[in-house]
């Protein structure tokens, strides 16, 4: 009888142990998959579920009629091509899903940015957008519309300080292009140190890019001891006559044109045609540093300075010169027409990496992408060795924390002469130009 009792006691202990083990198993930490599914079940718009065999939808919102936008789009396409590990003209997969690129165009106006963003949002499973080309199409426009829906917008060419200013930044906005506080400082240093000028004029277009770059240059030039003797404005597609007349009256030694085409080539030709400005030197920004802009200027382009990212740094990158550029030429039959292909390629790859890290793979091959997790993944990037330089994304959206800005003298611009050497080059970090401002 006592042996029977002992046996029953042992059985009871075993049963209790089993129950305890069961309870311990139930109380464990939930997996990433469970967390993501719970989040997405609460708010379906917060996530994108990509079904088996379905594509991951990405968008482009670029100024496709301009060489900068076209260049960026091509680079994004090449990044998708390289998802299979080679530039073979066949798009690769991302986490076992094809990538579908929905393309919309903007024309450097807020209205086109808003319209393009809304058209892209017609696809409810849109994960992220590469764009815009122009800051004007993003600031208070596409960035706002897309951020309201928690859709990432990563720009390869927006440079306006307004877009990443803590007061005006949209949460889901990032950019791989440099901040114009850097370009403004570099151009001011070039004008003062290399050209030895003490007076300058600025002709800008009233948009988020042009005006803020002009202001960044002017602030820095004043601080470096120069004087901005004239500031004028013109419409992107309007006549430069009034602005050039204002410059002629002030006779600055240098005129800075932080504008896109067609304003930029039109203003250059008008300045060259004005006898009072015959000895005035012209500096254009990276927005105008493009093959078609140079062609549009014609003979007036001779001697025009253009600021922008250092092409020499790009050429020194083995992957860029030995793989990317040959693939670009093979795919599009020409060399890159602007300076933004490197930042666009990096933008696309940063996005792919963020999707890989933020996605949860569900059984059967489905994919769950939490939009907030995707944004957090972008913020995890620190010291990414991209084609355009070292990238670290911070909460205000700036991913290029430093840049070397070089100045080229036409006709030796890198877009028409790939081996062109800059006449001036200067590196700044965002911290340097922001604190000195």
């Amino acid at each position, binding site marked *: 009888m006592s042996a029977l009792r002992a046996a029953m006691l042992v059985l009871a202990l075993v049963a209790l142990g089993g129950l305890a083990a069961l309870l311990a198993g139930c109380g464990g930490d939930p997996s990433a998959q469970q967390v993501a599914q719970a989040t997405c079940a609460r708010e379906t718009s917060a996530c994108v579920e990509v079904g088996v065999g379905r594509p991951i939808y990405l968008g482009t919102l670029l100024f496709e009629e301009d060489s900068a936008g076209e260049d960026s789009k091509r680079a994004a396409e090449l990044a998708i091509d390289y998802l299979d590990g080679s530039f073979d003209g066949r798009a690769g997969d991302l986490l076992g899903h094809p990538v579908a690129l929905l393309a919309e165009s903007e024309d450097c106006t807020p209205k086109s940015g808003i319209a393009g963003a809304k058209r892209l949002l017609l696809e409810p499973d849109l994960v992220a957008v590469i764009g815009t080309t122009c800051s004007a199409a993003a600031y208070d426009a596409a960035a706002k519309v897309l951020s309201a829906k928690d859709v990432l917008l990563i720009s390869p060419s927006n440079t306006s300080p307004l877009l990443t200013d803590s007061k005006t930044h949209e949460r889901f906005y990032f950019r791989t292009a440099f901040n114009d506080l850097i370009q403004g400082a570099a151009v001011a240093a070039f004008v003062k140190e290399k050209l030895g000028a003490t007076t300058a004029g600025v002709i800008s277009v009233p948009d988020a890019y042009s005006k803020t770059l002009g202001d960044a240059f002017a602030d820095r030039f004043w601080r470096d001891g120069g004087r901005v003797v004239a500031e004028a404005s013109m419409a992107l597609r309007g006549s430069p006559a009034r602005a050039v007349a204002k410059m002629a009256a002030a006779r600055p030694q240098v005129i800075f044109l932080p504008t896109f085409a067609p304003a930029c080539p039109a203003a250059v030709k008008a300045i060259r045609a004005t006898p009072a400005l015959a000895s005035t030197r012209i500096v254009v920004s990276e927005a105008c540093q493009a093959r078609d802009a140079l062609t549009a200027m014609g003979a007036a382009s001779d001697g025009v300075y253009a600021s922008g990212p250092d092409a020499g740094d790009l050429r020194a990158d*083995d*992957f860029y010169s*030995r793989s990317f550029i040959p693939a670009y030429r093979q795919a599009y039959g020409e060399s890159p027409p602007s300076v933004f292909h490197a930042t666009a390629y990096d933008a696309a790859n940063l996005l792919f990496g963020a999707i890989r*890290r933020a996605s949860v793979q569900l059984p059967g091959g489905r994919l769950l992408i939490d939009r907030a997790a995707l944004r957090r993944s972008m913020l995890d990037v620190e010291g990414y060795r*991209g084609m355009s330089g070292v990238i670290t994304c911070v909460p205000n959206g700036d991913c290029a924390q430093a840049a070397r800005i070089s100045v080229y003298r036409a006709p030796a611009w890198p877009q028409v002469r790939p081996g062109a050497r800059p006449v001036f080059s200067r590196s700044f970090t965002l911290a340097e130009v922001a604190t000195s401002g």
Partner: protein
Amino acid sequence: MTNYLVSLNEWVMVPLIIVLTLGASAVMMWTFSRYIRGEHREKSGATAAAYMTALGSLFAILTGFLINSEYSTLRDTQRIVGQEVAAASRLAYASASLPAADAELLQDALAAYLDDVQVGEWQALGRGTAGKSPAIDSLRELERRVSRLSDRPYVRSAEQAAIGAALDGVTSARRQRVVIATQSLPIALFALSVIAGIALVANSLLVSLRAGPRYGWVALGIVLVVALDLAAILAISAPFRGPFQVDIAPVTELVAEVRAGQYLDWVTIR
């Protein structure tokens, strides 16, 4: 039969073997008590008692050898899985020195392979259908991506060598894992153990029959020990199925780490 038994979980396997052993013992007990009576019971009990030590030792040696051998196999498999995971993490580290896009592509392929190992290959090895494992395709893709690096003029030979060596480690460890999965319990030895166990049980029953019902607990104890010994051998004899499997946690952890970007030096893990 053994294949079926080893695929059961511990909550089914152990009671089932105990029930089978008890059933066999009950049959033997009924047979002995019916056919061995009086003086014969005394003599057979005395004879059985004399053989208890020899039979017990034989059973202990046989099962001890099998348990040791199968446990060594289980431990070796775990070690091989550890080697595979270590080689995979070396591959992940080595790939981080490539240009960013290449590094991410390689690590993506590595994560896909490890994912297929933990999701599909373990079950395939358990079923004995290693040839149908989804990890075969993903390993082929990983090999393809690594071999393409040799065409890249911008990848230094030292980087290529490090990545290639790590991948060799992954593939050879996987092959060893697959080979172990195809091995099975040595049936002849196991059958010998079962026979020795039955003889031991029969002997103990004869001894208890002679000593009287109060000593039946001793025989019951021996029956349970024999059953548990045989269950233990079966439980550890298949590293990829049954109650005692190779722990897959190192693979699961590595997949999570690679997916989270922990092997990319530009990703900050918060």
